[in-house]
């Protein structure tokens, strides 16, 4: 049967089901097929915090949204064009996001009286006409899967479990995805269980054939590959990119990588990824708690490792005292905070940007720490290298902010040429043993004694004198140190000087970062939209919409939150209005007002989800209208 083929420039698909239905896997595979096909894409996994919430209930619904297009895109999309609902709970939880006329694929087998009752449906929505506004495809996915697998020597349960592959096969046919990578994946995943492997392959094939041969789908869609910059691409999530960035930084600096970490959502995948790479000499230490994980990292930093700790908000709270010690002893340390919705436990699997002020100020005393943020999943790679550069150059802890959306979201990534990455080995050197080199003498006082807190005049960094270096034996600690000699000092003037020196060192980092670049293609914009972190995509998409509607608007995005780029004040004053959208209640806005006396307009949502580009575009147009 020949089907009509309809060309589309972009599609947003959402797979939704029970957390045991394998929707994340189906989404991941569809993403991979789409990446290999050459579309640009962006994903948004959304799963419950519970590992297995009761089956068929609303809290147990897990979903995966994928936006793909024949042009470059910036977000996982606002509203799905297609919803795959594997049970009544998935339908109920996601239907409100589905626009009229969208495709709705429903697994009718799961719409039993019992399952309907679990989520409060008295009558099945399949029967009461309430789904008429959608393009409904009612498919008995479970029973078709079981039927397709009846010749396999597997349990009924295993057969039912393959229904996600049936759904994936169906969608893969519908959008003309290349099936090869999924076949390879299944063969590798179930290499030790050949019968399960064959069954999953068969379920995938059955779904594909179902699309091709039945009346359920009259149209097949085509989304042409996007024209991306030439190069080799892969799909990558933020957490994987972060782990790779840390490994790359270790290689670029010529320092062994040490990770101290404690499992916490959504940061654990960085630990998991780094634990695989022993061949790079990576030492991963799963500590007894958050405090020990950062403590061990600091100990390794004292010993000359590129040291990292990874966590999320609650872990940041626990690490604060040790980060303060790192500020005081002036050792390099990378602290990755994969933010999640707070306060307290909050919503562990949902995203938020509300740890900015904690990163800057969440320690006792005057305790300045550089803070940087990643803007997209693949940008986590470059953010990690930048964090390492600042840490080793200035001998300071650095907070790198990512979040749940970046951590689990993915996008195509043009794999960088290693030679194009910065050389971090020239950013620092270990202090040479006394008398061994001119630099060693420079670090000594008149009596030839080592001065562990004598600073480099350019960076104000103190010597990184690692144990094992003869002549540099010294003691460091959290008690205030005398300028230069580093011995304990309670002298009032010395404390005043040291507090100011530590601050000046961090402020001086601004000299080594480029100016904030503003994107203002028309050059006549009166409104600037300024963001930081993971809102880069949604702000960019919203700004595009506004410009397409004929308005001028400027956009800038901050990588460095502390210190700010040195031209930031000047940029802010250049515009009539500055709009600052944040997934918090206005933390960057507070800093901007305090530092630059600019009355920025703060736009905030804290729904545990990224901004929707359409909403943001309305907000921007509104500000432009009043400018």
């Amino acid at each position, binding site marked *: 049967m020949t089907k009509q083929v309809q060309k589309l420039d972009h599609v947003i698909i959402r797979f939704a089901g029970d957390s045991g239905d394998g929707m994340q896997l189906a989404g991941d595979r569809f993403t991979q097929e789409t990446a290999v096909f*050459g579309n640009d894409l962006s994903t948004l996994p959304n799963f419950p915090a519970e590992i297995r919430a009761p089956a068929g209930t609303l809290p147990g619904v897990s979903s995966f949204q994928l936006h793909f297009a024949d042009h470059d895109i910036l977000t996982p999309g606002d509203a799905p064009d297609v919803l795959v609902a594997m049970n009544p709970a998935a339908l109920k939880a996601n239907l409100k996001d589905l626009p009229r006329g969208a495709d709705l694929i429903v697994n009718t087998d799961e719409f039993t009286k019992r399952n309907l009752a679990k989520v409060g449906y008295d009558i099945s929505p399949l029967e009461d006409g309430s789904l008429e506004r959608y393009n409904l495809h009612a498919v008995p996915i479970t029973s078709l899967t079981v039927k397709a697998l009846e010749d396999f020597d597997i349990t009924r349960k295993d057969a039912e479990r393959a229904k996600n592959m049936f759904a994936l096969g169906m969608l893969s046919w519908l959008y003309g995805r290349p099936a090869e990578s999924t076949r390879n994946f299944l063969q590798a995943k179930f290499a030790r269980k050949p019968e399960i492997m064959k069954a999953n392959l068969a379920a995938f094939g059955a779904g594909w054939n179902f699309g091709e041969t039945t009346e359920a789908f009259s149209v097949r869609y085509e989304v042409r590959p996007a024209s991306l910059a030439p190069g080799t691409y*892969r799909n990558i999530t933020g957490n994987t990119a972060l782990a790779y960035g840390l490994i790359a930084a270790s290689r670029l600096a010529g320092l062994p990588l040490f990770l101290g970490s404690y499992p916490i959502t959504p940061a654990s995948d960085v630990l998991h990824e780094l634990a695989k790479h022993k061949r790079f000499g990576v030492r991963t230490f799963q*500590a007894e708690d958050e405090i020990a994980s950062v403590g061990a990292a600091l100990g390794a930093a004292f010993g000359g490792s590129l040291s990292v700790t990874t966590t999320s908000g609650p872990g940041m709270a626990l690490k604060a005292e040790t980060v303060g010690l790192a500020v005081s002893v002036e050792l390099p340390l990378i602290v990755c905070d994969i933010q999640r919705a707070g306060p307290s436990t909050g919503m562990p699997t949902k995203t938020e940007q509300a740890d900015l002020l904690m990163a800057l100020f969440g320690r006792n005393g005057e305790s300045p720490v550089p803070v940087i943020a990643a803007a997209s999943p693949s940008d986590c790679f470059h953010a990690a290298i930048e964090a390492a550069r600042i840490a080793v150059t200035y001998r300071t802890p650095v907070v790198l902010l990512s979040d749940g959306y970046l951590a689990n979201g993915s996008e195509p990534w043009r794999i960088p040429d290693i030679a194009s990455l910065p050389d971090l080995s020239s950013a620092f050197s270990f202090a040479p043993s006394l008398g061994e080199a001119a630099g060693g003498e420079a670090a000594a006082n008149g009596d030839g004694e080592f001065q562990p807190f004598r600073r480099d005049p350019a960076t104000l960094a103190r010597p990184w004198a690692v144990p094992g270096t003869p002549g540099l034996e010294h003691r460091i600690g959290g008690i205030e140190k005398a300028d230069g000699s580093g011995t304990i000092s309670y002298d009032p003037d010395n404390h005043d000087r040291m507090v100011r020196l530590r601050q000046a060192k961090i402020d001086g980092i601004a000299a080594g970062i480029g100016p904030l670049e503003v994107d203002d293609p028309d050059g006549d914009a009166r409104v600037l939209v300024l963001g930081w972190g993971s809102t880069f995509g949604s702000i960019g998409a919203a700004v595009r919409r506004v410009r397409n509607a004929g308005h001028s608007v400027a956009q800038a995005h901050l990588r460095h939150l502390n210190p700010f780029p040195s031209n930031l004040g000047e940029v802010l004053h250049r515009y009539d209005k500055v709009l600052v959208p944040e997934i918090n209640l206005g933390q960057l806005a507070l800093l901007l007002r305090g530092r630059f006396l600019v009355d920025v307009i703060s736009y905030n949502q804290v729904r545990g989800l990224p901004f929707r580009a359409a909403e943001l575009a309305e907000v921007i147009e509104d500000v432009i209208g009043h400018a």
Partner: protein
Amino acid sequence: MHDGIKEQNGHRLASLALVPRAAGLATKDFKSDQEVRWCPGCGDYAILAAFQAFLPGLEVPRENVVVVSGIGCSSRLPYYVNTYGMHSIHGRAPAIATGLATSRPDLSVWVITGDGDALSIGGNHLIHALRRNVNIKILLFNNRIYGLTKGQYSPTSEQGKVTKSTPFGSLDHPFNPVSLALGAEASFVARSVDSDRKHLTSVLRAAADHQGAAFIEVFQNCPIFNDDAFAPVKDSAGSGQLIRLEHGAPVRFGPGGETGLRFGPFGALEPVPVAEATPGSLITHDTSLADPSYAFALSRLDSADFARTPIGVFRSVDRPSYDSLMAAQIDDARARGGDGDLAALLAGGDTWEVS
């Protein structure tokens, strides 16, 4: 203690297998230029002196020794030792030392802590460092009081202790640090006394000769806030309250060494006059038993009144250290797959070309 070195004659202490060797160092080389600022008469002075005199015998260059401490009176010690050192945060020294020792097998890493530091705020790190068997040597100065904060009861203070924070007497039941360490799967556990330099030195040496985590409780007198807390033990030369443990020797104590130990019906050790014991029923001390039950039973002989207090090495068993296991995993991965290739890592997984 230098006699000990001569006996060893070329033998490298077990924890120092990967640490460079240097001879000819003297006690004075390990004294820093910082003025020691403990209260007059504090037991910490004696422990510091014993430690500084013991270090040359390790035959480790000064630059390869690192002393890490937490917060408290005892934790000031690193400032007085002319090696690398870190005076860190309350309770966290074992964690910091873990990162250092795990990433630098060429260092001899010592942790100095106290009863509040190690057993209260840092209890979690202590037990996990011990169970992991990280190659660090932990000296717990137990004075049964908070000194630096001026005299509150500690987790090792006897119940009913009247202090500023417990004017009606403390309610907490204390920890026995040796029992705790044994329960935490420590591979080396010992106890010594600040005033017994010779004994302390021998225990330090045994700890250095142990590959993995070593835990040493040192009874330390705080003359200011808890004076004479250990007086019964110190005056015990003739009173028979101290039980000196020596591997391979029959356990004998009391006046004239006339008392021995045997197992009671439920596994506890009980004192028995040697003359009355049936032949073969008396305990000969063995630190090498894989099962910690015996060492634990020994630790339980201790009581608030110090009626019978064992000192010496309770337990010393071989178990691969955490740092060596981690290094082996890395070596193994490299032996099988070669050194990591960054370009190959980044290009791993499904890739596609855009031209």
